[in-house]
């Protein structure tokens, strides 16, 4: 990574961290229903998505705020999913090539593989990347996705963030083997990287994407990360993990590591405080835009079920509209 890109990575990681902290506060204030924080995973998320090109397609899970920030996804539309405004998110999937966030754990790996197969059928040199946790690798769909990707040499990057915990269940209870080694069983390479090292993540993801672009098929990346917070704002992680573990992780904060790396290369303090100011401004803008954003009207629940609503559905829509009156 060159110096510019490294600074850009830091800037976006910081932005993701500050959004993440704000989202937790917004939940505590009743503005969001629930939120799954990703603090601690910024290097894995931001550096990986920056290794892709804009035409590549991203398939996120629900804990991918850093990926969304790295991709330039509209934050208001993204956060509104956590206000319950729209399942899957209110952002424009096509503009950022960022699929609806998957909360059916592991099911979206297959969508990424199918999309990648489609890109390959078209002869386009586009790549799909799919983000998931180590818990998702226990799902049968993950194995089916690995297998299809291997058999069809699909241009897909499987990006597993192993943050050690699937809610309260530790990684060693998900799998007796090492996740990155599963690639070999399906006929493609797997690599393990330090998910707190932005440069290592960027290098591994770039190599995997280039391999896919060359038509050589998928790669499984296992990025070892830590989530500093609970599974979600509704979770109490003190019930299942030691504080010492979290403290150790925080001492190895990927943001701090990258800052030290940049500072050592001569980036001045003023640059960091400018980045902090920029993030603070963005966060306050997000808070304001969320407060101003209206939820889609209830009758929109009928509008995207089918391409055109069948008569019985159109009737149900008008019944609700009539009940709601001017509030519809």
């Amino acid at each position, binding site marked *: 990574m060159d110096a510019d890109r490294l600074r850009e990575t830091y800037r976006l990681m910081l932005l993701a961290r500050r959004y993440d902290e704000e989202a937790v506060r917004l939940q505590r204030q009743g503005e969001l229903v629930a939120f799954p924080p990703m603090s601690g995973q910024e290097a894995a998320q931001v550096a990986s998505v920056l290794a892709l090109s804009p035409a590549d397609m991203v398939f996120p899970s629900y804990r991918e705020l850093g990926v969304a920030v790295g991709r330039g996804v509209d934050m208001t539309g993204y956060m509104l999913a956590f206000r319950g405004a729209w399942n*899957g998110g209110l952002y424009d999937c096509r503009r950022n090539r960022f699929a609806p966030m998957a909360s059916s754990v592991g*099911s979206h790996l*297959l969508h*990424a593989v*199918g*999309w990648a*197969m489609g890109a390959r059928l*078209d002869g386009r040199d586009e790549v799909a990347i799919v983000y998931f946790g180590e818990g998702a690798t226990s799902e049968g769909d993950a194995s089916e996705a690995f297998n*299809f990707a291997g058999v069809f040499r699909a241009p897909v990057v499987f990006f597993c963030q192993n943050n050690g915990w699937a809610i309260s269940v530790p990684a060693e209870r998900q799998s007796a083997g090492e996740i990155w080694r599963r690639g070999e069983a399906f006929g493609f390479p797997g690599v393990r990287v330090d998910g707190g090292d932005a440069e290592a993540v960027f290098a591994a993801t770039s190599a995997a994407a280039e391999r896919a672009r060359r038509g050589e098929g998928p790669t499984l990346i296992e990025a070892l990360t830590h989530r500093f917070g609970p599974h979600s704002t509704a979770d109490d992680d003190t019930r299942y993990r030691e504080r010492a573990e979290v403290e150790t992780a925080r001492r190895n904060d990927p943001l701090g590591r990258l800052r030290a790396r940049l500072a050592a290369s001569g980036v001045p303090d003023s640059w960091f405080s400018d980045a902090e100011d920029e993030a603070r401004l963005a966060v306050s803008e997000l808070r304001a835009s969320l407060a101003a954003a209206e939820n889609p009207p209830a009758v929109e629940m009928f509008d995207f079920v089918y391409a055109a609503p069948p008569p019985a559905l159109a009737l149900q829509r008008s019944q609700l509209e009539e009940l709601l009156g001017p509030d519809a």
Partner: protein
Amino acid sequence: MPELSMVQALNAALRHCLAAHDRTLVFGQDVGRLGGVFRVTDGLQHEFGERRVFDTPLAESGIVGVAVGLAMAGWRPVPEIQFDGFSFPALDQMLTNLAKYRGRSRGAYDMPVTLRLPSYGGIGGPEHHSESPESIYAHTAGLKVVTPSCAQEAFNLLVAAIRDPDPVIFMEPKSRYWAKEEVALEPAGLPIGRACVVRAGSDATLVAWGPMVHRCLQVASAAEEDGVSLGVLDLRCLVPLDEATLLTSVAETGRAVVVHEAPRTAGFAAEVSARLMEGAFGSLKAPVQRVTGWDVPYPSGAVEQQYIPSVDRILLAVQRVLDY
């Protein structure tokens, strides 16, 4: 017009769609070189190449999951799940993703997936090869459920389903696969969602779909011998349901018997009779009757004819509505 079996008519429909639209893809287990376990895809890989007609690993969830991704990438997938009972490993992808993706993306992605599902019993199949899961799919908003009753309908409806922008669960009645009739291989151009009066009658209306349409026609012939005139309505499409034709047909006779192979409880006949109660109550001369499979897991092939609604069971129900 050529005389074709339903298998050949389905094959012709797939061939038509592959030729007419170069983003149509056919895939599933054994659909390529073998031509499918029922030969519905026979010769298609040879004609259209391995790029567009291909075998997949043995993984139903995988087949449906990649169909979702392929649709997102702008393709028009026509996957096959080999048998009704093996659609269950793919239920999560069907219910959670295929049915919901248009909504989850606020309309950004069409899901023009036609999932072909050889369905129902009557062929002496082993366990898990004779299920009637239509009400599971009909109960899942976002899916459409289409089921032909004869070769001509199979051709027309499959072409229409593949052209449809929404996900269609296309349930093919295996027990009617080999029945032949003259088939016009010109797409009728009609959208899915229309029921069809296949026999007019004045005393009562039999409502059915898929394999039970043929059974109801047998019942209507038997009734004719006794001087009773039965109409037969083929719903063809459970979602969207052609409620107007349903209500009109039943209102003309005032009596309805709804027939399906699936078990009785929460079967689609319950939905049909509820619609008749709501929309045709004033015209009904008798309570709507249901003749269905028993509330048991699909039995072994040796006794399946005692499970599937028989002519006699349907006639008894007809007598009940006539006598009321």
